[in-house]
């Protein structure tokens, strides 16, 4: 009976010519969750053309950067196609369904679960990378049910930015705990700033990037130990939502979130603190100048809750398609990109923090990098499950309600119920 219904559905779709499906001709030869099947990668030089898709700054820089790889592997060529971030999933899904994949692809860490769910990625074979050299949270975020589908390439984490000149004038030092963080924001306001802190608000600004860390700081875990279900800790969730909401209800943060004036209100001192990633240094330097940033802007790890001071960990991974024509070459390119010295060179080119832990040590004399390095010891990455996108959009709306004065208790209960009905999405 079940098969009969399937055939009806398939017939309906097939008849009307769902191009993506009819064009592919290959069915599910690589179901997800299959154990590592690829052969180990040997040490012979890479050969042939290696095609790779990459986004953003990485896509623009990788082509030239890979020349060094081609010099070491003269029989290989590397062709990089730069694609916009917004198109990644569509392009990925179309390519997988139609069987027109490149060899390798850059994977935004939060996209990994959706990509694995859609199928098409090959498990990482032996001999590509020594997992113990990598940032642990980043390495974990490449795994689905114990199988790693990508190699971490670079990581980014968020730290607290504040106006050191204004803090000094107010006689304040950087906060290290939740309570201190609140009085820190109050301190700015009593010194005449309009607000004390900028926090993201709602789906548009992906506010889970601070709410998830708040939750982790209160001691919460998102998934259960086996990773096959959400396991919201009610008390930690309430604490995180209450804490997030308190900044808005106390008038310390504007309910417009970062809005269009994130940097300008930071620069003019009307809202002198925010939590963001390493890229903000150059954004601020572009707005004013590098000297102004050096004199007036400080970064510190985010303040700790009752459990820890976890911050959000994002970043980019590299994966290879199961249908890649040159999988061997692609893995060799990825292995090269994951070497410590390559990672150092890549950091100098793009400011992407190395996913290889030892590669960061060369830079820790720079105080800003050392802050990032400190923060990297304590991070939380979004859970590797396909339903996280929908889950996080729901959390953002519930958190918005709390910020507008409704109860954190109700919001936490709603989030738990939503998690129950969504499941992980596998």
């Amino acid at each position, binding site marked *: 009976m079940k098969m009969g219904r399937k055939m009806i559905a398939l017939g309906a779709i097939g008849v*009307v010519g769902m191009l993506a499906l009819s064009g592919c001709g290959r069915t599910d030869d690589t179901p997800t969750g299959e154990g590592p099947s690829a052969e180990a990668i040997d040490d012979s030089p890479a050969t042939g053309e290696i095609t790779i898709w990459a986004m953003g700054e990485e896509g623009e820089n990788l082509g030239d950067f890979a020349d060094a790889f081609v010099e070491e592997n003269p029989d290989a060529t590397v062709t990089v196609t730069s694609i916009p971030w917004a198109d990644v999933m569509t392009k990925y899904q179309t390519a997988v369904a139609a069987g027109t994949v490149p060899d390798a692809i850059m994977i935004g860490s939060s996209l990994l679960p959706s990509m694995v769910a859609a199928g098409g990625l090959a498990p990482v074979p032996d001999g590509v990378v020594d997992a113990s050299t990598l940032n642990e949270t980043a390495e974990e975020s490449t795994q689905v049910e114990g199988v790693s589908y990508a190699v971490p390439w670079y990581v980014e984490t968020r730290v607290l930015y504040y106006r050191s000149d204004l803090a000094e004038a107010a006689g304040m030092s950087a906060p290290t705990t939740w309570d201190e963080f609140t009085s820190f924001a109050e301190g700015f306001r009593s010194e005449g700033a309009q607000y004390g802190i900028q926090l993201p*608000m709602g789906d548009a600004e992906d506010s889970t990037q601070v709410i998830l860390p708040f939750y982790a700081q209160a001691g919460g875990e998102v998934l259960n130990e086996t990773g096959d279900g959400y396991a919201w800790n009610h008390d930690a969730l309430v604490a995180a939502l209450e804490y997030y909401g308190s900044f808005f209800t106390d008038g310390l943060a504007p309910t417009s979130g970062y809005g269009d004036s994130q940097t300008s209100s930071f620069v003019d001192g009307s809202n002198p603190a925010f939590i963001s990633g390493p890229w903000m240094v150059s954004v601020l330097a572009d707005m004013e100048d590098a000297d102004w940033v050096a004199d007036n802007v400080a970064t510190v790890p985010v303040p700790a809750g009752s459990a820890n001071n976890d911050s959000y960990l994002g970043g980019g991974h590299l994966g290879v398609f199961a249908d890649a024509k040159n999988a061997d070459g692609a893995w060799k390119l990825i292995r090269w990109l994951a070497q410590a010295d390559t990672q150092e060179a890549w950091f100098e080119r793009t400011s992407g923090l190395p996913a290889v832990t030892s590669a960061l040590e060369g830079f820790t004399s720079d105080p800003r990098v050392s802050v990032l390095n400190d923060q990297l010891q304590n991070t939380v990455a979004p859970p590797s499950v396909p339903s996280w996108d929908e889950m996080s*959009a729901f959390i953002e709306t519930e958190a918005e309600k709390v910020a507008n004065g409704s109860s954190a208790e109700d919001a936490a209960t709603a989030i738990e119920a939503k998690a129950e009905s969504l499941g992980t999405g596998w």
Partner: protein
Amino acid sequence: MSLTATGGAPRTAAPLRGGMAGQRRRTALVAWLFALPFLVIFAVFMLGPVIGSFAMSFTDLGVKDLRSPFAVNFIAFDNFVALFQDELFVKSIVNTFYFVLVGIPLTMALGLLLAVALNSGIERFRGVFRVGFYTPVVTSIVAVAVVWRFILQDTGLMNTVLSWVGINGPDWLNDPVWAMPSIIVMGAWRNMGTLMIIFLAGLQAIPRDVYEAAEVDGAGAWRRFTGMTLPLMRPTLLLGAVLLSVGFLQVFEEPFVMTQGGPLNSTLTISYYVYSQFGYGDYSLASAAAYVLFAFIAALSAVQFRLLRSKDN
């Protein structure tokens, strides 16, 4: 059947009528040949996806099934049931109708007002005004959105102007109560130009001597407008209303670029819901939602035709 049915029948041997039929067939064949490229493209890129998504809405096709189509199940109306049990979808319907029911009269009124003003008074500057009021239609929504967001900020131009008359304005786009009205005003502003052009054409098709006769009979301006202009404009108003409601029911760009559906989902529209479900990889549910929207558009258009046509018969 008969010899004449084949187009290549010798002219002399065939009866006259048969020859003409063959000729017609040949003409028809050539016409089809010329139309073929369009028909193929239409079938593949328009008809295919339309029917495909209709079929999809009765299955559980999701992101996981892209590579394994045999795993797709026929689930009849389950998606539609799930949709109407989803608070978010119900909210998106309410929001969409809020946008449509307030936005359409407002936009129609603005368009008609502009058209009447341009048609009567301001002869000399007509060109300038036509261009001016039409500019929002042809300007990129993304560029416009940036400017509007600055205007509507809590410290923006709108609140500055309001403060001159002692009103303490809200943070328009971040206030769950005011976000949708703000979006509606922007939607009206963007679309009034199109209606102005349509209505202006309608107004100019009304013969002048009808008005002159009415004037001689002593009809005032308001009487002429309600007694003559509006009835004579009925078909044009109908066209405007139908075009506008088809567009407004699908409202997407304004909330997408201005508020991302927020705050508190107060500007989440049906199209936006469809878009986000596709993003979550739930293709079948998104297709079902799209067909619910289609049903609304078809129903509303039918109602409008009935309401505005009835007096013609």
